[in-house]
């Protein structure tokens, strides 16, 4: 089967100030390659500072890579740091939904802006799309006029999901999006995510520390350590027989 998203030899280096005039290069990601099919979930795990969040930001386009390609359905959307700005098929849900929503805008205004920037819908089409998206993530149409501070954390995560889904993305990146939730709310959101995946064939890239969640929903697993892939393969296989020492250590805790 043709993979939906293909990442080839992605690298990212940050310049770090080391002293007054010196700048040190710090390689966050080295030669990352993986691919996912439609409707699959890939989990990325690794210890803190292994480059997981940087990888997420590269995928959605918040950072640009130094070298390497990202291909979506065989179209190159990023080539050696050149991003095709029109591509909004990869969307991201942030770790803390409370800070990733603009406190001064209502939910409707926020979603409306999303549509305005990326589609040629007219007013009626936009409001219809907002209604249907809110219902899809388990919110009510009435929630449109609410400000972010009026929601609970679980609802905010749904709003963040609505914001990601309103542009009909093919890939959704969840950067620790489920970590800050308490178990029952997390279970609700996970079930919602799985339901949406079944219905629309979404692909998820899950970045998390939560191992049982990884085992529960992901098909493939990437283990990162110091910016390099140490293990990549089928989730169940890796959980059964981890090859590298780092994976063994991660999975044993």
């Amino acid at each position, binding site marked *: 089967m043709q993979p939906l998203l293909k990442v080839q030899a992605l690298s990212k280096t940050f310049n770090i100030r080391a002293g007054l005039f010196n700048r040190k290069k710090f390689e966050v990601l080295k030669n990352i390659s993986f691919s996912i099919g439609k409707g699959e979930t890939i989990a990325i795990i690794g210890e803190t500072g292994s480059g997981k969040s940087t990888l997420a930001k590269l995928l959605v386009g918040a950072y640009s890579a130094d070298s390497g390609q990202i291909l979506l359905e065989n179209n190159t959307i990023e080539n050696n740091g050149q991003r095709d700005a029109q591509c909004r098929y990869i969307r991201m849900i942030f770790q803390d939904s409370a800070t990733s929503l603009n*406190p001064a805008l209502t939910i409707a205004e926020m979603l409306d802006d999303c549509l305005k920037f990326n589609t040629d819908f007219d007013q009626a089409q936009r409001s219809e799309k907002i209604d249907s998206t809110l219902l899809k993530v388990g919110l009510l149409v009435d929630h449109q006029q609410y400000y972010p501070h009026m929601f*609970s954390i679980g609802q905010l995560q749904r709003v963040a999901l609505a914001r990601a889904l309103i542009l009909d993305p093919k890939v959704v990146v969840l950067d620790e999006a489920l970590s800050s939730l308490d178990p029952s709310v997390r279970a609700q959101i996970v079930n919602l995510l799985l339901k949406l995946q079944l219905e629309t064939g979404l692909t998820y890239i899950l970045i998390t520390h939560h191992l049982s969640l990884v085992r529960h929903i992901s098909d493939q697993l990437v283990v990162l350590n110091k910016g390099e892939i140490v293990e990549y393969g089928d989730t169940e296989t890796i959980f059964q027989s981890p090859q590298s020492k780092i994976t063994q250590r991660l999975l044993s805790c």
Partner: protein
Amino acid sequence: MAKFNLFSEDANKSPLARLWRKFKNNHPALVGLWVFIAFCILAATAPFLAPYGVNQQHSDALLLPPSWNEMGDVRFILGTDDLGRDVLSRLMNGATYTFGLSVVAALITTMIGVLVGTFAGISKGLRASFLNHLLDVTLSIPSLLLAIIIIAILGPGLMNTVWAIILALLPQFIHSIRNLIVDELGKDYVTAYRLDGASNWHILSRGIFPNVYEYIVVIFTMALSTAILDIAALGFLKLGAQPPTTEWGAILAENLGLIYLAPWTVALPGVLLFLAVLSTNLVGDGLRKVLQARKAD
């Protein structure tokens, strides 16, 4: 999941409405706001409201005390000065100069400060440093002294005072605005908005300004109270407004020689200056407290 009331109109408050609700409960700040608004109205309409002309002399009524004194005359509610001019009319017109011009100076400072501070905030590297530190030299001198230096070059006069005050206030303003913008730009919602496809202009107008304009108002009130004091001080030192201009500081200076003979001619402009600065500071302080309270919940 948290319970919520779906159809409650009351709960559906914008951040601004929440701010006002909290501000209303802070009574000193609310009183300050009313006094502040009264001063604004007075500054705009004083020539029409004042009972007599500013320089209209009444030779039959020299140095009359305020009307509640047994020597007073009900025609001149706050008495007259040594030239027989009505103190009330002069003080009312003084609001236009001292308070009104301070507001204008603070507004111009705000506009320039927001413009330069925003550019400094969104640009990077050398350009940001240049914009940010453009007027930093003036930070090394107290604002009043700087104003005196500028007046020494330009010559005394009310408009020169205003320019001097604007120049003295600008660097602090630019720094504060730039810090606000940089803080906001680092937040997740800006990144998320950028990923939605928002341009820099959208991020500023829809993302950042709706979240910082209250802070800009707080900085504005601080600039305003400094401006009021500086304009009055320069008027008092005979470097700013010149008599017979009815600027409060100038009135104070003009009548200083009468302080034993007619204390009301000196005390009343002082009281007004005190009220103007107090109300401005009460509003600014109340607003700052409310903003902190809103952030906390």
